[in-house]
Protein backbone atom coordinates (compact mmCIF):
# COMPACT_ATOMS: atom_id res chain seq x y z
CA UNK A 1 0.00 0.00 0.00
CA UNK A 2 1.45 3.36 -0.94
CA UNK A 3 1.20 6.13 1.61
CA UNK A 4 1.45 9.88 1.24
CA UNK A 5 4.65 11.53 2.44
CA UNK A 6 3.37 13.58 5.41
CA UNK A 7 4.33 17.13 6.34
CA UNK A 8 4.95 18.52 9.82
CA UNK A 9 2.86 17.05 12.59
CA UNK A 10 0.36 19.84 13.18
CA UNK A 11 -0.07 20.44 9.46
CA UNK A 12 -0.63 16.74 9.00
CA UNK A 13 -3.31 16.80 11.68
CA UNK A 14 -5.08 19.67 9.93
CA UNK A 15 -4.81 17.89 6.61
CA UNK A 16 -6.32 14.71 8.02
CA UNK A 17 -9.13 16.49 9.80
CA UNK A 18 -9.96 18.36 6.61
CA UNK A 19 -10.02 15.14 4.59
CA UNK A 20 -12.15 13.37 7.19
CA UNK A 21 -14.64 16.22 7.41
CA UNK A 22 -15.05 16.58 3.67
CA UNK A 23 -14.85 12.97 2.65
CA UNK A 24 -17.75 10.61 2.18
CA UNK A 25 -18.90 9.46 5.59
CA UNK A 26 -18.29 5.76 6.11
CA UNK A 27 -20.51 4.30 8.77
CA UNK A 28 -18.05 2.94 11.30
CA UNK A 29 -20.67 1.97 13.84
CA UNK A 30 -20.89 -1.65 14.85
CA UNK A 31 -24.16 -3.06 13.49
CA UNK A 32 -26.85 -3.17 16.15
CA UNK A 33 -27.15 -6.95 15.86
CA UNK A 34 -23.44 -7.37 16.61
CA UNK A 35 -23.66 -4.97 19.53
CA UNK A 36 -26.53 -6.96 20.98
CA UNK A 37 -24.59 -10.21 20.62
CA UNK A 38 -21.53 -8.67 22.24
CA UNK A 39 -23.57 -7.33 25.14
CA UNK A 40 -25.29 -10.68 25.59
CA UNK A 41 -21.97 -12.53 25.63
CA UNK A 42 -20.58 -10.09 28.18
CA UNK A 43 -23.54 -10.23 30.54
CA UNK A 44 -23.97 -13.95 30.02
CA UNK A 45 -20.34 -14.56 30.90
CA UNK A 46 -20.76 -13.06 34.35
CA UNK A 47 -23.95 -15.03 34.80
CA UNK A 48 -22.02 -18.21 34.01
CA UNK A 49 -19.52 -17.34 36.73
CA UNK A 50 -22.28 -16.87 39.29
CA UNK A 51 -23.84 -20.17 38.29
CA UNK A 52 -20.47 -21.93 38.46
CA UNK A 53 -19.95 -20.60 41.97
CA UNK A 54 -23.22 -22.14 43.06
CA UNK A 55 -22.45 -25.58 41.63
Amino acid at each position, binding site marked *: *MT*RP*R*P*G*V*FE*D*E*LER*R*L*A*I*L*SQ*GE*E*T*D*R*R*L*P*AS*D*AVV*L*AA*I*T*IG*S*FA*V*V*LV*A*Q*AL
Partner: protein
Amino acid sequence: MANGTRIETALAETLPLLPEERSWSFRDMLAVKSGLSIATWGFLFGGATGQLVGFIDGVIALFFGTAVGLGILFFALLLPVYRKGCESFVFLRSAFGPLGASLLAVPLVLGMVPFSAAILSTMAGAATEEVLIGLSLFSADSGLPLSAIMSFAVLGVSFLLAARGSDTLRLFNLATVPLLVLLSGGLLVAVFIEAGWECIFAAEPPETRWDRPTRLMLAVELNIVAAISWFGLAGNLMRYGESARAATWGTWIGLVPVSLLPSIAGLASSLALGSADPVQWMTPLVGPVLGLAMLLILIVANVSSAVGLLQGNVTTIIQNFGAPIRRLGFAGMTSILCVIASLIIWFATDALYAKFYSITASFGAIFAACVGVLLADRLVLRRSDANLAALHNASGGPYAFWSGINPAALIALAAGFATYIALLEPVSQTPDALFRYTSASLPAIAGAFVVHLALTRLVTIPARRGGYDGVRGARFDVSDAEPAE
Protein backbone atom coordinates in the same frame (compact mmCIF):
# COMPACT_ATOMS: atom_id res chain seq x y z
CA MET B 1 0.96 24.60 5.54
CA ALA B 2 3.87 22.21 5.58
CA ASN B 3 7.25 23.86 5.62
CA GLY B 4 8.84 21.00 3.75
CA THR B 5 9.81 19.07 6.88
CA ARG B 6 8.68 15.44 6.67
CA ILE B 7 7.41 13.29 9.50
CA GLU B 8 7.65 9.54 9.40
CA THR B 9 4.68 7.43 8.45
CA ALA B 10 4.53 5.73 11.84
CA LEU B 11 4.28 9.16 13.47
CA ALA B 12 1.53 10.22 11.09
CA GLU B 13 -0.48 7.14 12.01
CA THR B 14 -0.73 8.34 15.60
CA LEU B 15 -3.14 10.93 14.17
CA PRO B 16 -6.74 10.14 13.10
CA LEU B 17 -6.48 7.44 10.48
CA LEU B 18 -7.51 8.13 6.91
CA PRO B 19 -9.93 5.74 5.22
CA GLU B 20 -7.21 4.17 3.08
CA GLU B 21 -5.14 3.43 6.20
CA ARG B 22 -7.99 1.45 7.74
CA SER B 23 -7.34 -1.59 5.65
CA TRP B 24 -6.90 -4.55 7.99
CA SER B 25 -9.22 -7.41 7.20
CA PHE B 26 -10.78 -9.66 9.84
CA ARG B 27 -7.85 -12.05 9.26
CA ASP B 28 -5.30 -9.28 9.75
CA MET B 29 -6.95 -8.08 12.95
CA LEU B 30 -7.27 -11.62 14.25
CA ALA B 31 -3.59 -12.26 13.53
CA VAL B 32 -2.40 -9.12 15.30
CA LYS B 33 -4.61 -9.60 18.35
CA SER B 34 -3.72 -13.30 18.52
CA GLY B 35 -0.07 -12.34 18.37
CA LEU B 36 -0.64 -10.06 21.34
CA SER B 37 -2.38 -12.68 23.43
CA ILE B 38 -0.21 -15.72 22.73
CA ALA B 39 2.75 -14.65 24.81
CA THR B 40 4.22 -14.82 28.29
CA TRP B 41 1.24 -13.28 29.99
CA GLY B 42 -1.00 -16.03 28.69
CA PHE B 43 1.10 -18.55 30.61
CA LEU B 44 1.39 -16.22 33.61
CA PHE B 45 -2.33 -15.53 33.87
CA GLY B 46 -3.01 -19.22 33.51
CA GLY B 47 -0.45 -19.96 36.19
CA ALA B 48 -1.79 -17.28 38.52
CA THR B 49 -5.28 -18.67 38.00
CA GLY B 50 -3.95 -22.12 38.91
CA GLN B 51 -2.74 -20.72 42.23
CA LEU B 52 -6.39 -19.95 43.11
CA VAL B 53 -8.62 -22.65 41.61
CA GLY B 54 -8.58 -26.09 40.04
CA PHE B 55 -8.64 -26.84 36.33
CA ILE B 56 -12.37 -26.62 35.54
CA ASP B 57 -12.87 -23.46 37.59
CA GLY B 58 -9.69 -22.13 36.05
CA VAL B 59 -10.95 -22.55 32.50
CA ILE B 60 -14.21 -20.86 33.52
CA ALA B 61 -12.31 -17.95 35.06
CA LEU B 62 -9.96 -17.60 32.09
CA PHE B 63 -12.64 -17.58 29.43
CA PHE B 64 -15.59 -15.90 31.08
CA GLY B 65 -13.52 -13.44 33.13
CA THR B 66 -11.74 -12.28 29.99
CA ALA B 67 -15.03 -12.09 28.08
CA VAL B 68 -16.58 -9.88 30.78
CA GLY B 69 -13.64 -7.49 30.92
CA LEU B 70 -13.18 -7.19 27.19
CA GLY B 71 -16.89 -6.87 26.49
CA ILE B 72 -17.19 -3.93 28.86
CA LEU B 73 -14.06 -2.37 27.36
CA PHE B 74 -15.60 -2.56 23.89
CA PHE B 75 -18.57 -0.42 24.88
CA ALA B 76 -16.52 2.03 26.95
CA LEU B 77 -13.58 2.64 24.67
CA LEU B 78 -12.87 0.33 21.74
CA LEU B 79 -16.02 0.94 19.70
CA PRO B 80 -15.92 4.75 19.96
CA VAL B 81 -12.18 4.83 19.25
CA TYR B 82 -12.79 2.69 16.20
CA ARG B 83 -15.55 5.02 15.01
CA LYS B 84 -13.43 8.12 15.36
CA GLY B 85 -10.17 6.59 14.19
CA CYS B 86 -8.35 8.69 16.76
CA GLU B 87 -5.83 7.55 19.34
CA SER B 88 -7.42 6.08 22.49
CA PHE B 89 -6.26 8.64 25.04
CA VAL B 90 -7.22 11.44 22.64
CA PHE B 91 -10.73 10.03 22.85
CA LEU B 92 -10.42 10.06 26.65
CA ARG B 93 -10.20 13.87 26.43
CA SER B 94 -13.96 14.00 25.90
CA ALA B 95 -14.37 12.68 29.45
CA PHE B 96 -11.21 13.72 31.29
CA GLY B 97 -10.05 16.80 29.39
CA PRO B 98 -6.74 16.94 27.50
CA LEU B 99 -4.57 17.39 30.56
CA GLY B 100 -6.59 14.81 32.49
CA ALA B 101 -6.11 12.26 29.71
CA SER B 102 -2.38 12.96 29.59
CA LEU B 103 -2.13 12.55 33.37
CA LEU B 104 -3.83 9.16 33.09
CA ALA B 105 -1.44 8.14 30.35
CA VAL B 106 1.45 8.46 32.79
CA PRO B 107 0.60 5.42 34.93
CA LEU B 108 -1.47 3.58 32.37
CA VAL B 109 1.05 3.76 29.55
CA LEU B 110 4.41 4.99 30.84
CA GLY B 111 3.97 2.73 33.85
CA MET B 112 2.26 -0.26 32.34
CA VAL B 113 4.09 -0.60 29.03
CA PRO B 114 7.67 -0.94 30.31
CA PHE B 115 6.44 -3.39 32.96
CA SER B 116 4.68 -5.49 30.33
CA ALA B 117 7.59 -5.27 27.88
CA ALA B 118 9.95 -6.34 30.67
CA ILE B 119 7.81 -9.37 31.44
CA LEU B 120 7.77 -10.41 27.79
CA SER B 121 11.48 -9.84 27.29
CA THR B 122 12.44 -11.61 30.51
CA MET B 123 10.72 -14.81 29.53
CA ALA B 124 11.98 -14.58 25.96
CA GLY B 125 15.47 -13.93 27.30
CA ALA B 126 15.24 -16.98 29.55
CA ALA B 127 14.04 -19.03 26.59
CA THR B 128 16.92 -17.77 24.46
CA GLU B 129 19.38 -18.72 27.18
CA GLU B 130 17.93 -22.24 27.21
CA VAL B 131 18.25 -22.46 23.43
CA LEU B 132 21.87 -21.33 23.50
CA ILE B 133 22.70 -23.80 26.25
CA GLY B 134 20.77 -26.53 24.44
CA LEU B 135 22.80 -25.88 21.30
CA SER B 136 26.00 -26.05 23.38
CA LEU B 137 26.92 -22.48 22.44
CA PHE B 138 27.14 -21.64 26.13
CA SER B 139 27.34 -23.71 29.26
CA ALA B 140 24.84 -23.43 32.08
CA ASP B 141 27.60 -22.47 34.53
CA SER B 142 29.28 -19.87 32.34
CA GLY B 143 28.63 -17.19 34.94
CA LEU B 144 27.39 -14.76 32.31
CA PRO B 145 24.09 -12.93 32.90
CA LEU B 146 22.95 -14.63 29.73
CA SER B 147 19.23 -14.38 30.41
CA ALA B 148 19.43 -10.64 31.05
CA ILE B 149 21.59 -10.07 27.97
CA MET B 150 19.20 -12.03 25.83
CA SER B 151 16.27 -10.13 27.35
CA PHE B 152 17.87 -6.88 26.19
CA ALA B 153 18.44 -8.40 22.76
CA VAL B 154 14.78 -9.42 22.50
CA LEU B 155 13.77 -5.92 23.55
CA GLY B 156 16.07 -4.52 20.88
CA VAL B 157 14.57 -6.69 18.15
CA SER B 158 11.09 -5.70 19.28
CA PHE B 159 12.07 -2.06 19.13
CA LEU B 160 13.39 -2.39 15.58
CA LEU B 161 10.18 -4.01 14.40
CA ALA B 162 7.83 -1.71 16.34
CA ALA B 163 9.50 1.45 15.08
CA ARG B 164 8.67 0.48 11.50
CA GLY B 165 4.94 0.96 12.00
CA SER B 166 1.64 -0.82 11.54
CA ASP B 167 2.33 -2.71 8.30
CA THR B 168 5.34 -4.45 9.85
CA LEU B 169 3.21 -5.40 12.84
CA ARG B 170 0.48 -6.82 10.61
CA LEU B 171 2.83 -8.77 8.34
CA PHE B 172 4.94 -10.10 11.22
CA ASN B 173 1.87 -11.41 12.99
CA LEU B 174 0.34 -12.92 9.85
CA ALA B 175 3.59 -14.84 9.39
CA THR B 176 4.07 -15.95 12.97
CA VAL B 177 0.61 -16.54 14.42
CA PRO B 178 0.21 -20.05 12.92
CA LEU B 179 3.46 -20.99 14.69
CA LEU B 180 2.22 -19.47 17.92
CA VAL B 181 -1.00 -21.44 17.74
CA LEU B 182 1.04 -24.60 17.13
CA LEU B 183 3.26 -23.76 20.07
CA SER B 184 0.49 -23.22 22.56
CA GLY B 185 -1.50 -26.17 21.32
CA GLY B 186 1.62 -28.33 21.43
CA LEU B 187 2.45 -27.23 24.97
CA LEU B 188 -1.07 -27.97 26.10
CA VAL B 189 -0.94 -31.45 24.60
CA ALA B 190 2.50 -32.05 26.11
CA VAL B 191 1.35 -31.10 29.59
CA PHE B 192 -1.70 -33.32 29.34
CA ILE B 193 0.35 -36.25 28.08
CA GLU B 194 3.01 -35.80 30.74
CA ALA B 195 0.76 -35.24 33.71
CA GLY B 196 -2.32 -37.13 32.57
CA TRP B 197 -5.88 -35.90 32.27
CA GLU B 198 -6.94 -37.34 35.61
CA CYS B 199 -4.07 -35.72 37.46
CA ILE B 200 -4.75 -32.30 35.96
CA PHE B 201 -8.47 -32.45 36.60
CA ALA B 202 -7.92 -33.63 40.15
CA ALA B 203 -5.10 -31.22 40.99
CA GLU B 204 -5.85 -28.71 43.72
CA PRO B 205 -4.40 -25.22 44.01
CA PRO B 206 -2.36 -24.27 47.09
CA GLU B 207 -4.31 -24.07 50.32
CA THR B 208 -5.89 -20.66 51.07
CA ARG B 209 -8.23 -19.40 53.76
CA TRP B 210 -11.04 -18.60 51.29
CA ASP B 211 -13.85 -20.83 50.15
CA ARG B 212 -14.25 -22.02 46.58
CA PRO B 213 -16.72 -19.32 45.41
CA THR B 214 -14.38 -16.60 46.66
CA ARG B 215 -11.36 -18.20 45.03
CA LEU B 216 -13.28 -18.54 41.78
CA MET B 217 -14.21 -14.86 41.87
CA LEU B 218 -10.57 -13.95 42.62
CA ALA B 219 -9.55 -15.88 39.52
CA VAL B 220 -12.32 -14.25 37.49
CA GLU B 221 -11.29 -10.82 38.79
CA LEU B 222 -7.71 -11.42 37.70
CA ASN B 223 -8.88 -12.12 34.17
CA ILE B 224 -11.37 -9.24 34.10
CA VAL B 225 -8.59 -6.76 34.88
CA ALA B 226 -6.28 -8.53 32.46
CA ALA B 227 -8.78 -7.93 29.68
CA ILE B 228 -9.53 -4.34 30.68
CA SER B 229 -5.80 -3.67 30.80
CA TRP B 230 -5.61 -4.00 27.01
CA PHE B 231 -7.31 -0.60 27.19
CA GLY B 232 -5.80 1.93 24.80
CA LEU B 233 -3.55 -0.57 23.05
CA ALA B 234 -6.51 -2.61 21.82
CA GLY B 235 -8.26 0.55 20.68
CA ASN B 236 -5.25 1.96 18.87
CA LEU B 237 -4.74 -1.23 16.91
CA MET B 238 -8.44 -1.77 16.29
CA ARG B 239 -8.56 1.51 14.34
CA TYR B 240 -6.85 -0.20 11.42
CA GLY B 241 -9.85 -2.47 10.82
CA GLU B 242 -11.56 -2.05 7.45
CA SER B 243 -14.99 -2.47 9.03
CA ALA B 244 -16.44 -2.32 12.52
CA ARG B 245 -17.51 -5.93 12.34
CA ALA B 246 -14.08 -7.19 11.17
CA ALA B 247 -12.29 -5.08 13.76
CA THR B 248 -14.60 -6.09 16.61
CA TRP B 249 -14.71 -9.81 16.12
CA GLY B 250 -11.07 -10.07 15.06
CA THR B 251 -10.20 -8.37 18.32
CA TRP B 252 -12.63 -10.37 20.45
CA ILE B 253 -11.61 -13.76 19.08
CA GLY B 254 -7.90 -12.89 19.23
CA LEU B 255 -8.05 -11.70 22.82
CA VAL B 256 -10.58 -14.16 24.27
CA PRO B 257 -10.67 -17.72 22.89
CA VAL B 258 -7.22 -17.58 21.29
CA SER B 259 -5.76 -16.38 24.58
CA LEU B 260 -6.99 -19.61 26.13
CA LEU B 261 -4.29 -21.55 24.30
CA PRO B 262 -1.34 -20.32 26.35
CA SER B 263 -3.34 -19.65 29.48
CA ILE B 264 -4.81 -23.14 29.75
CA ALA B 265 -1.30 -24.52 29.18
CA GLY B 266 -0.12 -22.30 32.01
CA LEU B 267 -3.06 -23.33 34.19
CA ALA B 268 -2.50 -27.05 33.62
CA SER B 269 1.25 -26.84 34.09
CA SER B 270 0.88 -24.76 37.24
CA LEU B 271 -1.51 -27.31 38.74
CA ALA B 272 0.22 -30.48 37.62
CA LEU B 273 3.86 -29.56 37.17
CA GLY B 274 4.26 -26.83 39.76
CA SER B 275 5.21 -24.04 37.38
CA ALA B 276 3.44 -21.98 34.73
CA ASP B 277 6.76 -20.98 33.15
CA PRO B 278 7.15 -23.09 30.01
CA VAL B 279 10.87 -22.34 29.86
CA GLN B 280 11.33 -24.40 32.99
CA TRP B 281 9.49 -27.51 31.89
CA MET B 282 9.33 -27.44 28.11
CA THR B 283 12.58 -29.20 27.21
CA PRO B 284 12.43 -31.86 29.96
CA LEU B 285 8.87 -32.57 28.89
CA VAL B 286 9.12 -32.88 25.13
CA GLY B 287 12.80 -33.66 24.65
CA PRO B 288 15.72 -31.52 23.45
CA VAL B 289 14.91 -31.19 19.74
CA LEU B 290 11.22 -30.40 20.05
CA GLY B 291 11.91 -28.40 23.18
CA LEU B 292 14.39 -26.17 21.40
CA ALA B 293 11.99 -25.65 18.51
CA MET B 294 9.23 -24.70 20.91
CA LEU B 295 11.52 -22.36 22.80
CA LEU B 296 12.34 -20.58 19.56
CA ILE B 297 8.64 -20.17 18.84
CA LEU B 298 8.10 -18.91 22.40
CA ILE B 299 10.71 -16.24 21.74
CA VAL B 300 8.87 -15.24 18.56
CA ALA B 301 5.59 -15.22 20.48
CA ASN B 302 6.94 -12.74 22.97
CA VAL B 303 8.56 -10.61 20.30
CA SER B 304 5.28 -10.38 18.37
CA SER B 305 3.46 -9.34 21.52
CA ALA B 306 6.13 -6.82 22.49
CA VAL B 307 6.03 -5.30 19.01
CA GLY B 308 2.26 -4.84 19.22
CA LEU B 309 2.53 -3.51 22.76
CA LEU B 310 5.14 -0.93 21.83
CA GLN B 311 3.63 0.04 18.48
CA GLY B 312 0.16 0.51 19.89
CA ASN B 313 1.17 2.39 23.04
CA VAL B 314 3.81 4.71 21.63
CA THR B 315 0.89 6.14 19.66
CA THR B 316 -0.60 7.28 22.97
CA ILE B 317 2.60 8.93 24.12
CA ILE B 318 3.13 10.76 20.84
CA GLN B 319 -0.40 12.12 20.93
CA ASN B 320 -0.61 13.09 24.56
CA PHE B 321 2.71 14.48 25.72
CA GLY B 322 3.17 17.42 23.43
CA ALA B 323 5.63 18.69 20.87
CA PRO B 324 8.85 17.98 22.83
CA ILE B 325 8.01 14.28 22.84
CA ARG B 326 6.98 14.33 19.19
CA ARG B 327 10.38 15.75 18.28
CA LEU B 328 11.89 12.48 19.49
CA GLY B 329 10.02 10.75 16.72
CA PHE B 330 8.27 7.39 16.81
CA ALA B 331 11.51 5.44 17.02
CA GLY B 332 12.90 7.75 19.69
CA MET B 333 9.89 7.34 21.93
CA THR B 334 9.88 3.56 21.39
CA SER B 335 13.50 3.44 22.45
CA ILE B 336 12.77 5.34 25.68
CA LEU B 337 10.14 2.78 26.65
CA CYS B 338 12.63 0.03 25.90
CA VAL B 339 15.25 1.71 28.11
CA ILE B 340 12.78 1.88 31.01
CA ALA B 341 11.89 -1.78 30.42
CA SER B 342 15.60 -2.62 30.42
CA LEU B 343 16.01 -0.98 33.83
CA ILE B 344 13.12 -3.04 35.16
CA ILE B 345 14.70 -6.20 33.72
CA TRP B 346 18.06 -5.40 35.30
CA PHE B 347 16.86 -4.36 38.73
CA ALA B 348 13.51 -6.03 39.34
CA THR B 349 13.13 -9.28 37.43
CA ASP B 350 12.24 -11.34 40.50
CA ALA B 351 9.63 -8.83 41.60
CA LEU B 352 7.97 -9.01 38.19
CA TYR B 353 6.89 -12.57 38.73
CA ALA B 354 6.49 -12.50 42.51
CA LYS B 355 4.25 -9.42 42.45
CA PHE B 356 2.48 -10.18 39.18
CA TYR B 357 -1.05 -10.42 40.61
CA SER B 358 -0.62 -7.37 42.85
CA ILE B 359 0.78 -5.19 40.09
CA THR B 360 -1.90 -6.29 37.64
CA ALA B 361 -4.70 -5.72 40.16
CA SER B 362 -3.39 -2.28 41.11
CA PHE B 363 -3.36 -1.14 37.49
CA GLY B 364 -6.68 -2.89 37.03
CA ALA B 365 -8.29 -0.74 39.71
CA ILE B 366 -7.40 2.39 37.75
CA PHE B 367 -8.48 0.90 34.44
CA ALA B 368 -11.81 -0.26 35.87
CA ALA B 369 -12.59 3.19 37.27
CA CYS B 370 -11.68 4.78 33.91
CA VAL B 371 -14.05 2.43 32.16
CA GLY B 372 -16.87 3.49 34.47
CA VAL B 373 -16.31 7.15 33.67
CA LEU B 374 -16.14 6.45 29.93
CA LEU B 375 -19.35 4.40 29.96
CA ALA B 376 -21.25 7.16 31.73
CA ASP B 377 -19.83 9.82 29.44
CA ARG B 378 -20.36 7.97 26.21
CA LEU B 379 -23.62 6.10 26.75
CA VAL B 380 -25.57 8.59 28.87
CA LEU B 381 -24.09 12.08 28.91
CA ARG B 382 -23.02 12.47 25.29
CA ARG B 383 -25.17 9.73 23.76
CA SER B 384 -22.13 8.58 21.75
CA ASP B 385 -21.57 12.05 20.32
CA ALA B 386 -17.97 13.32 20.22
CA ASN B 387 -16.33 15.77 17.85
CA LEU B 388 -13.09 14.63 16.21
CA ALA B 389 -11.65 18.08 15.58
CA ALA B 390 -12.48 19.21 19.11
CA LEU B 391 -10.78 16.14 20.55
CA HIS B 392 -7.54 17.27 18.91
CA ASN B 393 -7.80 20.79 20.26
CA ALA B 394 -5.55 20.23 23.25
CA SER B 395 -5.32 23.88 24.23
CA GLY B 396 -8.97 24.85 24.27
CA GLY B 397 -12.28 23.98 22.70
CA PRO B 398 -15.33 22.35 24.24
CA TYR B 399 -13.44 19.51 25.93
CA ALA B 400 -11.10 21.85 27.83
CA PHE B 401 -13.31 21.71 30.97
CA TRP B 402 -11.26 23.60 33.59
CA SER B 403 -7.72 24.24 32.33
CA GLY B 404 -7.72 20.91 30.53
CA ILE B 405 -8.99 18.84 33.42
CA ASN B 406 -12.47 17.55 34.21
CA PRO B 407 -12.62 17.40 38.01
CA ALA B 408 -15.85 15.41 37.92
CA ALA B 409 -14.18 12.61 35.98
CA LEU B 410 -11.14 12.54 38.23
CA ILE B 411 -13.29 12.48 41.37
CA ALA B 412 -15.30 9.66 39.81
CA LEU B 413 -12.04 7.87 39.01
CA ALA B 414 -11.00 8.16 42.63
CA ALA B 415 -14.40 6.89 43.77
CA GLY B 416 -14.14 3.89 41.47
CA PHE B 417 -10.60 3.18 42.61
CA ALA B 418 -11.65 3.41 46.27
CA THR B 419 -14.54 1.05 45.59
CA TYR B 420 -12.15 -1.45 44.06
CA ILE B 421 -9.72 -1.27 46.98
CA ALA B 422 -12.58 -1.63 49.46
CA LEU B 423 -13.62 -4.87 47.81
CA LEU B 424 -10.18 -6.28 47.02
CA GLU B 425 -6.92 -5.12 48.54
CA PRO B 426 -4.52 -5.78 45.65
CA VAL B 427 -1.21 -6.08 47.51
CA SER B 428 -2.35 -8.74 49.96
CA GLN B 429 -5.12 -9.93 47.62
CA THR B 430 -7.60 -9.86 50.48
CA PRO B 431 -11.23 -9.76 49.37
CA ASP B 432 -14.17 -8.21 51.19
CA ALA B 433 -17.18 -10.37 52.06
CA LEU B 434 -19.22 -8.92 49.18
CA PHE B 435 -16.48 -9.58 46.68
CA ARG B 436 -17.48 -13.17 45.94
CA TYR B 437 -20.84 -11.97 44.59
CA THR B 438 -19.76 -8.85 42.73
CA SER B 439 -16.02 -8.99 41.92
CA ALA B 440 -14.14 -5.72 42.50
CA SER B 441 -14.03 -4.39 38.93
CA LEU B 442 -17.77 -4.33 38.31
CA PRO B 443 -18.62 -2.30 41.43
CA ALA B 444 -15.65 -0.02 40.70
CA ILE B 445 -17.01 0.57 37.21
CA ALA B 446 -20.49 1.15 38.61
CA GLY B 447 -19.22 3.51 41.31
CA ALA B 448 -17.24 5.64 38.86
CA PHE B 449 -20.22 5.60 36.47
CA VAL B 450 -22.66 6.91 39.06
CA VAL B 451 -20.34 9.55 40.51
CA HIS B 452 -19.37 10.88 37.08
CA LEU B 453 -22.98 11.03 36.00
CA ALA B 454 -24.06 12.83 39.16
CA LEU B 455 -21.23 15.36 39.26
CA THR B 456 -21.54 16.14 35.57
CA ARG B 457 -25.27 16.78 35.81
CA LEU B 458 -24.97 18.76 39.05
CA VAL B 459 -21.79 20.74 38.37
CA THR B 460 -20.22 20.46 34.93
CA ILE B 461 -23.27 20.92 32.73
CA PRO B 462 -24.69 23.85 34.73
CA ALA B 463 -21.24 25.46 34.51
CA ARG B 464 -21.44 24.98 30.72
CA ARG B 465 -18.17 23.11 30.60
CA GLY B 466 -17.24 20.03 28.60
CA GLY B 467 -19.44 20.60 25.57
CA TYR B 468 -22.24 18.44 26.93
CA ASP B 469 -24.80 20.66 25.29
CA GLY B 470 -23.41 19.63 21.89
CA VAL B 471 -20.33 20.78 20.02
CA ARG B 472 -21.40 23.32 17.43
CA GLY B 473 -19.50 24.94 14.62
CA ALA B 474 -16.86 22.27 14.46
CA ARG B 475 -15.89 20.87 11.12
CA PHE B 476 -16.66 17.26 11.81
CA ASP B 477 -19.65 16.09 13.82
CA VAL B 478 -20.52 12.45 14.22
CA SER B 479 -23.45 11.33 16.26
CA ASP B 480 -25.51 8.24 16.95
CA ALA B 481 -28.77 10.09 16.49
CA GLU B 482 -30.04 7.40 14.14
CA PRO B 483 -29.65 3.74 14.96
CA ALA B 484 -27.39 1.66 12.78
CA GLU B 485 -28.88 -0.66 10.17
